[in-house]
Each structure stands twice: as C-alpha cells, then as structure tokens.
C-alpha cells in the first residue's frame, strides 16, 4: 500500500458546507502534525476547490461533492475534490488570475490560490461530466 491512511467525504453542494469541508480536511491532516501555517494553507485550498464546485459545477441546483484525502508515506497529504457538474470548457482560461464567470462576489483568484498554497496542483475536467482537482501538500517534519 502506497498510502498510510485515507478518508472519503461526500457532501451536497450547499455553501453552508464550505466551512465543514475545510475543517474536516484540516482535522484529518492534523495527524501529520502540521504547523498552523500549513494547516491554514490546506484549509484555504480546500475552501477554494469546494466553493468552485458549489458556484460553478452546479449553478442551478445541488449536486454531490466528493472529497478524498490520503496520507502518503513521505509526510504528504493528498487531496482530491471531485464533482459531476457542468465541467470546464477552457481550463487554461479558468486558471488565469482574476478570470471568473461568477458574480460580483467572486474574485477569480481560486485556482491561483490553490496553486500557490499547495505543493502540487492539477485540474482535469470534461464538459458535461465534471471536474476533478488533485492537490498535494508535503508537510515539513518538525524536529
């Protein structure tokens, strides 16, 4: 087995679940003994990914968001956040800072923040089928 522990969480795309989702992942990650800053980074990236599912994947109703976390052997947290929503037609455009198809309450900085707060980050999407965000964060071992 390449991973040491895992959890899967399934939630409906209600905005009231944003806080729950980021806290749940942070709780799971806490077994790696992260620093406050590392935990803050993970919470931020998860919040962005889950918000994207709520705002963009399911614009007209509720859908399912699946969050899978694994702890890999080299003190790394692996997070996958998946939806079965509308998908992204042009990922490159969506990744541009300040680009958003959301309303005035969105800044278009979600992907930029996920990318800068995590060690690795990738997005795959199929229009009409859904989007999958895959992120990893390697945590410093505390001495």
């Amino acid at each position, binding site marked *: 087995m390449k991973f040491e522990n895992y959890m899967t969480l399934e939630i409906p795309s209600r905005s009231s679940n944003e806080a729950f989702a980021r806290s749940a992942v942070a709780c799971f990650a806490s077994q790696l003994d992260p620093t406050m800053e590392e935990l803050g*980074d993970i919470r*931020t990236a998860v*919040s*962005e990914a889950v918000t994207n599912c709520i705002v963009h994947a399911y614009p007209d109703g509720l859908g399912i968001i699946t969050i899978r976390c694994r702890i890999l052997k080299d003190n790394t947290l692996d997070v996958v956040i998946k939806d079965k929503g509308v998908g992204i037609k042009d990922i490159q455009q969506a990744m541009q*800072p300040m680009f958003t198809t959301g309303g*005035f*309450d*969105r*800044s278009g*900085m979600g992907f930029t923040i996920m990318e800068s707060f995590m060690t690795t980050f990738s997005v795959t999407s199929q229009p009409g089928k859904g989007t999958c965000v895959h992120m990893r964060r390697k945590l410093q071992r505390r001495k």
Partner: protein
Amino acid sequence: MRLTSYLQDSRLTIELTGEIDHHCAKSYIQTIASKIEAYTPQTCILDFEQVTFMDSSGIAVAINALRNMGRIGGSLLITGICGQPLKVFKASGIEKIVEIKECVL
C-alpha cells in the same frame, strides 16, 4: 456574518470578524456597500484584525469595497491583517491596488 462599524471625521471603520468564505461573502459585500452609500466617507477602513480565516471571497469583499469607494471619490485602507488572511491577500496581488497595513504583533 458579524461586523461592527463606526464613523468618525468622515472615516468609516468597518471591523470584520470570524471566517470569510463564499457562504457569507455576499452579505458582507452588500452590507459594506450600503454603509458606504449611507455615510459617503472620504476613507473607508476595513479592519481584518478579528478575521480568523478567509479564502478568495475576502479578496472579493475588498475589491467591491474599493469599487464602492472609487465611485464616491474616496479611498480604501485595509488594516490589522495578519496570518492566514494576509497570506491570501499577498497571493492575490491585491496589495498593488489597495493600501494594506499589517497588524503589529
């Protein structure tokens, strides 16, 4: 959403508290916009000292306040920001367009 605000010498100070995410961003944006419209201050100060967490929704809150102040010819200042919220502000590059004063620890 919890905030308190006060007006002194045409300076409107709005203190934000708790966590700012997409779930509460819209009500923050609308409440701040209506306060700016009602008081037409020369300067609006958004105080982030009591903000314990924010994602990019906090950037949207700041950008909307900046637009509202621009419309009435005033300026925006962000104060008391530190820790995780400061990191999000820096990652977004918004400090190039808004004056930010970090909190002194």
